[in-house]
């Protein structure tokens, strides 16, 4: 458990370093950023490993069942629909792997989901998402999976679309590569949920986690750290997790450039104000980045 908290903290710090490297004098230092990305990867692996330990088998079974149905709902991304189902998942956000922060995040996430539909409070939603993405990678997944598959997928779609403040990614890969960490999570969640089998309301958090993992697993290699965290939850999708390991720091650099502080917010929810601001710019940035399939290589080539 301590490893999980430690891993999470290290991931936050690493992302902060990557972000700060953009504004450092002398340009991005390739060596330091490479090392930071390696630490990020190690922390993520530990985080995922720990999370896997807490998943119960039933969750995995339920996930498998839901898998087929998610495929159908993949097309429903733009349907705002059933965010109501989200709040239900709040209470169940506690995963087998104990995480108090996820619980909080989930709740805020659920709330955000509802709001995101209105798209009038994207900032708020983003905050929640950012929090989720940063502090508790599992959280967005969990909350998303809490609702029934269809609803979840819808909600996820909504969230992702809201977060992205634009058309949802046309494919999981894009979602995965969303620059904004939280948004990516949402996008991934959407994608993953779409692929996940429909989960009954009674799905436990663990199930959601499993689904999250699956979602994460299906993400392309460029998935952000957040995604990988989600993936880790899914034992079954471990193979996909390995794909996540190749996430690129450089993409993170470009992605997180605009609104990183939101991602770094800890569970205590400190600095919501700053996050809101950053979320705005981050969201806009995310929109732009969504189109960018290869931010890492682009940034590095230019560099």
């Amino acid at each position, binding site marked *: 458990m301590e490893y999980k908290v*430690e*891993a999470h903290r*290290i991931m936050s*710090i690493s992302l902060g*370093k990557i972000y700060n490297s953009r504004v450092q*004098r*002398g*340009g991005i*230092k*390739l*060596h*330091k950023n*490479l*090392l930071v990305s*390696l*630490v990020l990867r*190690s*922390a993520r692996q*530990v985080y995922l490993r720990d999370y896997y330990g807490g998943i119960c088998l039933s969750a995995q079974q339920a996930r498998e069942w839901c898998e087929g149905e998610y495929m159908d709902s993949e097309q429903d991304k733009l349907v705002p629909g059933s965010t109501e189902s989200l709040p239900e998942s709040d209470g169940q956000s506690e995963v087998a792997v104990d995480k108090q922060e996820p619980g909080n995040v989930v709740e805020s996430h659920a709330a955000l989901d509802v709001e995101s539909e209105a798209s009038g409070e994207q900032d708020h939603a983003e905050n929640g998402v950012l929090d989720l993405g940063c502090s508790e990678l599992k959280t967005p997944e969990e909350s998303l999976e809490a609702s029934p598959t269809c609803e979840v997928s819808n909600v996820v779609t909504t969230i992702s679309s809201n977060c992205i403040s634009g058309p949802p990614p046309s494919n999981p890969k894009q979602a995965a590569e969303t620059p904004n960490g939280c948004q990516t999570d949402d996008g991934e969640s959407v994608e993953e949920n779409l692929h996940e089998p429909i989960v009954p309301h009674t799905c436990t958090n663990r199930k959601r986690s499993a689904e999250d993992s699956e979602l994460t697993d299906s993400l392309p290699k*460029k998935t952000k750290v957040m995604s990988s965290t989600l993936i880790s939850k899914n034992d079954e999708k471990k193979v996909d997790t390995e794909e996540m390991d*190749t996430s*690129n720091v*450089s993409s993170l650099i470009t992605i997180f450039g605009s609104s990183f502080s939101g991602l770094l917010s800890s569970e205590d929810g400190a600095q919501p104000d700053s996050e809101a601001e950053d979320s705005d710019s981050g969201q806009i940035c995310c929109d732009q980045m969504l189109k960018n399939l290869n931010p*890492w*290589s682009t940034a*590095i*080539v*230019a*560099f």
Partner: protein
Amino acid sequence: MGEDTESSKVNHSFLRDYVTEADVISTVEFNHTGDLLATGDKGGRVVVFQRETVPKGELEQVGETGESGEYNVYSTFQSHEPDFDYLKSLEIEEKINKIRWLPQQNAAHFLLSTNDKTIKLWKVSERDKQPEGYNLKDEEGRVKDISTVTSLQVPVLRPTDLMVEVRPRRVFSNGHTYHVNSISVNSDGETYLSADDLRINMWHLGITDRSFNIVDIKPANMEELTEVITAAEFHPHHCHLFVYSSSKGSLRLCDMRASALCDKHTKLFEEPEDPGSRSFFSEIVSSVSDVKFSHNGRYLLTRDYLTAKVWDLHMEKGPVETYQVHDYLRTKLCSLYENDCIFDKFECVWNSSDSVIMTGAYNSFFRMFDRETGRGVTLEAWRETSKPRAVLRTRRIYTGGKRRRGDVGVDSLDFTKKILHMAWHPEENIIAIASTNNLYIFQDRSLNACAHTHTH
């Protein structure tokens, strides 16, 4: 620490401790005879010190042989200025990353200095005579009115005060896309290499518009990047051999006779990772920050974050000696990661006989290891304790067991006072240690170690 009883010292301490970023020394290098010592700082300036020669008469009185003087400022010049890459919208720091002296061939001295992108060759020469008595120009150099010239004279050279002139002779620019971390002059005296994160170029000292790329580890897809070049050096005797270190902790010895592009190493020096000590920061800690050939060319000295290792060129599977520099930091890697100290790049040096190696640490400490006995000693470069002619005391870090007076606890180490850059005289036991903006020069005079300092 030394006595600090004067209250005035306490009052002024904050002024004394205030260091402008530009004054931080970023490189130190002796020339091949040890008479000159060059330092580069973050503000792009180079300061050259010269050892004062003690007249023979005095030497005999003191009972010492050879030069025994102190190092005084010889010349100061601005080597690099802040620059801007308009194409990439990147600021180029003027910080001097490395200085390397060329072997002396005539009365002038030449040195190479580099920042992140550009390498410059500087000529440092003395002038102690000045021509006087021009016919067409007066003393100030203004052209004379022809009508006032009534007779002709032959200009003569008159001795004047010693002037040290520094002129840039070559500028080697646009050779590197990434940040230059090392330069090394070849033993052939004509070429040198410059290494950045992904490439190593070989230049001819006389040609500035062309360089050969001899190592390129840039992957076709940058997303697959796993390691970068951290340091490179030519072999001291074999002009076809050079070594470069990577961020993964491996060393590659390359022979330029094998092929034009030395991507394929001739020898790969790598130590298998100890699985027991794996942590989040294993990769960072294993990244080699400096590599140096021994003077005899048979060994390599490398420094990673926690250790210094000596490698035998004939044995690739692991180092022959490993020295723990500050192993007590192994449990503190997480906080060192947070405050960025884990990315500090420490240098390491050999003594003239390759029997002692030296490297820096935190809290103004530096470590020397005797290779024959395997023992290490911790010394401190701190103004308060380094009065001229003071004997360097060994320090100890308290890590458990019986605590002695003067031991420093690990938690009370000052991580802002780091000794990253140092140099050892090529022939004598004189060391130059750079600590932030201070330069300490310690000389081993038979039994005593005396110190004098220079501050920017």
